């Protein structure tokens, strides 16, 4: 955040944040608070994913692994008698260690191989959690409460807001720092990035470590808020897809994208819940297809593209980008 100017954007962000955090004082209905909690949490998860999927351009569909390790880790550490909050952070550290392993192996692969490897890791964890006794098998575990009492949902909501703020600041740092530029260089052209002296493997792993830590905290919050976890709810690839499409819809590699995506997608799926019932993922599928076909840069990315005054590239130069071809 060195060189971070306090301009009008900062004040707008602060006001939005204060309004966002004050929501529970306007809404007392627990169900609505729960929906708000999920929106905020998934915005945080989308921001965390954005480091890897957006800035570095690596399509991970295995983030649910970190999410799940966060939730399971919290439950298991708490069972040992460790205070819940310390357990949550320990779980996040374990997830970060997992990320180090996954990253070192998977980042040697590119494109579809990388995506496949991330899916495989997450699936191995899901199957292990389903079959091991310590994780309660398919029956699952009861989660310790990070918050208890009357202000249950309000507290969880505020914790999610805090996580979203931390993730946002990490993203904001990534979009302005040398490290972030390295990541973007890798996204645009990995070979060239390596040729100009960027240690691409290390940069990608660092991005994944940060992303995994934040995602695991999100998993711990989510698991604790819903009080009970089973492998099929907390380690399903659906969550990975959900996180990815939230970010893609809003705009991968943009600061506001994941937030916009989370608000839109989760309210839409909430609104359609009664219409489609168990098929609520249908809307995700349709949105993915629409985003890929018509707005590969996402909503925020597309708007930025429209409004930003840019130097025109020479006519024969063909900008190439992982995210569809426009950002340079």
């Amino acid at each position, binding site marked *: 955040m060195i060189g971070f100017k306090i301009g009008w954007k900062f004040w707008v962000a602060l006001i939005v944040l204060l309004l966002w955090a004050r929501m529970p004082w306007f809404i007392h209905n627990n169900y609505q608070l729960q929906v708000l909690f999920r929106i905020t949490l998934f915005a945080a998860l989308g921001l965390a994913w954005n480091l890897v999927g957006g800035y570095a*351009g690596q*399509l991970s*569909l295995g983030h649910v692994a970190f999410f799940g390790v966060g939730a399971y880790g919290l439950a298991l550490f708490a069972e040992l008698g460790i205070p819940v909050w310390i357990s949550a952070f320990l779980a996040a550290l374990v997830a970060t260690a997992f990320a180090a392993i996954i990253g070192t*192996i998977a980042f*040697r*692969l590119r*494109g*579809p*191989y990388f*995506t*496949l*490897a991330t*899916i*495989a*890791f997450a*699936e*191995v964890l899901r*199957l*292990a959690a*389903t*079959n091991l006794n310590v994780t309660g098998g398919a029956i699952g575990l009861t989660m310790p409460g990070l918050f208890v009492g009357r202000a249950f949902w309000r507290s969880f909501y505020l914790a999610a807001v805090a996580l979203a703020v931390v993730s946002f600041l990490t993203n904001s740092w990534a979009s302005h720092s040398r490290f972030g530029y390295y990541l973007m260089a890798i996204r645009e052209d990995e070979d060239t990035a390596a040729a100009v002296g960027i240690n691409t493997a290390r940069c990608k792993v660092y991005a994944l470590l940060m992303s995994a830590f934040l995602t695991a905290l999100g998993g711990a919050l989510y698991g604790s808020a819903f009080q009970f976890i089973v492998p099929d709810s907390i380690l399903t*690839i659906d969550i990975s*897809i959900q996180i*990815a*499409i939230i970010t*893609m819809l809003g705009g991968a590699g943009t600061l506001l994208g994941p937030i916009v995506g989370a608000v839109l997608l989760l309210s839409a799926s909430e609104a359609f819940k009664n219409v*489609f019932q*168990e*098929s*609520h*993922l*249908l809307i*995700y*599928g*349709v*949105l*993915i*297809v629409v*985003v*890929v*076909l018509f707005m*590969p840069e996402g909503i925020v990315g597309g708007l930025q593209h429209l409004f930003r005054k840019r130097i025109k590239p020479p006519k024969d130069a063909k900008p190439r*980008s*992982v*995210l*569809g*071809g426009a950002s340079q």
Partner: protein
Amino acid sequence: MVRFLQACADGLLTGALYALIGMGLALIFGVMRIVNFAHGAFLMVGMYATYVLFDYFKLNPYIGFLPAGIALFIFGYLVYMALIRPIRDRSHFMQILMTTGIGLILTDAAQLIFKADYRQTNIDLINRSVHLGPFGANAAEVLSFAIAVAFVVGLRAFVVRSRTGQALRAISQNAEIAPLMGINLVRIQGISFALGTALAGIAGGLLLPRLYLFPGVGEDYTTKAFVMVVLGGMGSIEGAAFGGLVLGLSESLTSLYLGNQWALIIDFALFLLVLSFKPSGIFGRQRA
């Protein structure tokens, strides 16, 4: 020893069906360099198509898989034209997202139409068995094995001998030069996508009598198909067939010695090992 050999035989019986699934995926990857994350969903559609034929027209699944395969061929061609063709020059990132999206739509559409109920086809054949010395096998499995082998051999012959097959191989070798030689890229890509889809559908039809049918049934098969294709070397059709057999064997042996629930974990472990140490596959050539 008998148990070991029996497990090997069972593994090969399943492996031939896997080979069919893997070859479909390899065909699509080889010609388009697109990893089809909707492959398992296509298999599921094939199963439902066969099921509908069974349910309404009392058509035996071992006959019904054929019309289902043809329907899937047409369906695959349409999906290619509408959704895959516009993004064929885009990054892997976008292509993976697209096929994931198609898979989600198919699975949830099936859920909407057929609900989440478990369905089953009861045919006589499934209760009969064939014996050979100390070994025994389910008659239905032997039949589906025979059909699968016929298709595997047929597909190989098609790819090697026919003119379309040659065009297909030309594109998979060099997608930039092949069109200059007068090959219609869009047509060939469409055909190979449709063919890959049809193979998944046929495999689905053949699997139907042995499995419970529900909308999510295909999910495991997408990942399994990747494992086979990666084992055999991405894009190599023979390699994928080999990968299918290996996977069938390893699953059957894992079930015997460790228990059924570990089979999928071993699949993935195999997958990660091959990906980390020899990403071009056991048979594959090194690619950039």
